[in-house]
């Protein structure tokens, strides 16, 4: 780990650096992992569109298929599905028979908007720990979607508009994929989300039809609809147009009551793009790794647990942030102007 980020000396490249470097391997397009300004990027082909949106149209990005090996100064590098968002990848690094895997962010539950996580054997596993405490246990995705539908229905019957906050990249599209073909609608979107919806649709991902709220006339009646907005739109003037609303938030943090209450959100839906505690432990075990580096999240407890279970583990400081803290960076620019 260096000032710029996680560095592979033999291959002279960084993984998800937070400062500009000559060569960067990118695990996924969230703002805390894919930073603007590097000379050359390597990323998974599945995520091309969202990476372009994030890194700029003229960024130099080398795209590879999942599993396709690349030789960097004699180091064999390949990207493998991480199941986090569209195009997310684990980075597998092999040099003189020694294998490292850097997870980026990942989840093992299946998700219609991206290729499913693939377990890889390795000697050293670098894992995230965003939800690395046993209080974080997810119910299946279907449970959260059912709750969302019931909430929307009750609001529609009471003449209210449902405003659901979800991270603009990944979570919003996962919700839209889950609501596709259901009775929920019409679904309106904030500009920050609509632009990424376009990227997902262009990448061949089936999601529910949406109407960009910014394209509608002033005074449009939204009653009974579902509005999908990034969390940063909470409490903003932008929300005024929707009249009487009930607010919801789809995030793993909603497992904790205090996390919902301090945002003054009416309803929390536990839906995460990260592994929960049991999946995290299972994923680590499946790698067969003899050494584990634990990055962003609940590093210390996860390391202690692993050490107590006979695994050589250590906490590694990084500037990656896990679910939601990078939300403001994810938006980049104010959402309204984005869809031209």
């Amino acid at each position, binding site marked *: 780990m260096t000032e710029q980020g996680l560095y592979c000396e033999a291959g002279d490249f960084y993984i998800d650096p937070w400062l500009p470097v000559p060569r960067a391997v990118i695990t996924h397009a969230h703002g805390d992992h894919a930073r603007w300004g590097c000379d050359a990027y390597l990323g998974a082909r599945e995520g091309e569109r969202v990476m372009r949106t994030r890194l700029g149209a003229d960024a130099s990005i080398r795209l590879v298929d999942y599993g396709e090996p690349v030789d960097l100064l004699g180091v064999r590098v390949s990207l493998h599905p991480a199941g986090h968002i569209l195009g997310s990848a684990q980075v597998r690094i092999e040099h003189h028979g020694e294998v490292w895997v850097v997870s980026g962010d990942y989840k093992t539950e299946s998700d219609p908007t991206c290729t499913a996580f693939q377990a890889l054997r390795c000697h050293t596993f670098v894992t995230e720990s965003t939800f690395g405490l046993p209080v974080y246990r997810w119910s299946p995705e279907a449970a959260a979607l059912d709750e969302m539908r019931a909430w929307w229905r009750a609001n529609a019957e009471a003449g209210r508009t449902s405003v659901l906050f979800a991270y603009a990249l990944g979570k919003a599209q996962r919700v839209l994929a889950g609501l596709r073909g259901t009775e929920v609608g019409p679904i309106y979107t904030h500009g920050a989300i609509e632009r990424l919806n376009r990227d997902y649709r262009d990448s061949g991902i089936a999601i529910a039809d949406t109407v960009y709220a910014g394209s509608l006339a002033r005074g449009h009646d939204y009653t009974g609809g579902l509005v999908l907005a990034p969390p940063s739109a909470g409490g903003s003037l932008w929300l005024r147009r929707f009249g009487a609303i009930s607010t919801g938030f789809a995030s793993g943090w909603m497992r*904790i009551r*205090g996390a919902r209450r301090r945002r003054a959100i009416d309803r929390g839906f536990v839906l995460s793009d990260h592994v929960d505690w049991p999946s995290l432990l299972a994923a680590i075990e499946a790698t067969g790794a003899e050494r584990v580096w634990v990055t962003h999240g609940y590093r210390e407890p996860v390391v202690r647990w692993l050490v107590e279970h006979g695994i050589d583990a250590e906490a590694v400081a990084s500037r990656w942030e896990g679910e939601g803290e990078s939300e403001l960076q994810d938006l980049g620019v104010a959402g309204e102007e984005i869809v031209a």
Partner: protein
Amino acid sequence: MKDFAALVAAIDETTRTTEKVDAMVRYFTNAQPTDAAWAVHFLSGERPKRLVPVRRLAAWAIEASGIPDWLFEECYTAVGDLAETITLLLPDSASSIERPLHVWIEEHLLTLANLDESGQRQSILASWLALPARERFVWNKLITGGFRVGVSQPLVIRALSRVSGISEGVIAHRLSGTWSPRADSWTSLVAEQTRDADISKPYPFYLAYALEDEVESLGEASGWQVEWKWDGIRAQLVRRQGVSSLWSRGEELVTDRFPEIAAAAAQLPDGTVLDGEIMPWKGDKPLPFAQLQRRIGRKSLGPKILADVPVVLIVYDLLELAGVDVRHRPLSWRRGRLAELLASAGMKPNDSEPGACSEIFRLSPSIDAAAWQDVRDAWQRAREACAEGLMLKRLDGGYGVGRRRGGWWKWKVQPYAVDAVMIYAQAGHGRRASLNTDYTFAVWDGGALVPFAKAYSGLTDAEIRELDVWIRRNTVEKFGPVRSVKPEQVFELAFEGIQPSPRHKSGVAVRFPRIARWRTDKRPEDADTLATLHALMSTPPRES
């Protein structure tokens, strides 16, 4: 229990008062009387006494969830709430058993007191297995004594009024004082007949809003009564049928805590209710509030403490005269009758003795203010008068119920303010769990920073999140939950009072410190010094 847990969740999941009231109306309409009585009890902010030590509950939860102690602690720090931590860690219940709220309370909770440790353990473990997550959370809140619901008393009263068709004022009166959660209490709470016999019952307190606009916006100064705002314990003294009851604003019966007032109350005529402020008072001056706290903190009141911290009742208002509720009468009328009443009570023969009626009951002085400028001048003098500001009351207004806008205003003096550097941070609890929201602030003493105050409030949610990220990136050391941070962030702290304190490293103790502003424009070396703080003790606060 299922319905009650659903009610708690419904209240928790909305910030709109109409929806909270609707949820309560739905619950009370369908609940059986004993359940409804317990629900009223809990919604009114009453909590069951904690019968099992928290340490034991944690130990059993650790046992049931199969994780090590340290990991439980980590989870507790992240969640910030013991009842919730336990709820989230326990395995999901396989089969739930539905029992009414009152059965859980009367047969499972209250009976814990009669069980030994192993009996309690068995009972609690069985309860956890029997309850699904939402009910388990409410149950854990009840057994940890931490039950709190996000409704104010006026909302509960509004819901009860809608369910029963009885007016809100009558419901409020029936609920004030000691109310036992029994089926017959519920029945009489919502009963049609309005003859209430309880002789000790106080009226709901009328509370003032803080004045935000210029005082001139209140119309003519001559329409207002101006009094000092005292920093004591707001109280109501009820004298009926030879019995005296002194109630604090928390509607707690405190007659025994203030024997001087109870003794003097015997001189009041039956059917009298006074509203006033219990103040520690010696000679011709009030004592600091901290002195009164010394007295409140004691289990038994010896002659020494009674002599050291004598109290008086500064009387503000007259609510009942000769057994008749006079709250609807204008303040000018009530004030006139109050002055007559206190004068005639003071005429009793034993008035010359210490502790006599006129010594204990003091009519709250009204400040002569013909024009608003006089009021402003008085406000400037408030700290000299040992008051926290002024109270403005409409002379033609009645005595209202709860906090209402318009009739009464409090106008507090400007707080003291200093610029201080944040040196420690700690995660908060409840809705602030896993965010660093509790901060310690320091001022300069030579080249060193000396901590002098902790503050928890004053920042917006967005500022708290931004500061939290900064704290995580600028932590120097961690001592358990406390982080020391680089001394770089400067905040303007406001506080109400400052006193010498040998127990604090800084030598001063401040009252009600809170964050006034995040001074991102200031560097740490621009913060104030300990000498500035010491100088504040001898001067009134700065003007703003």
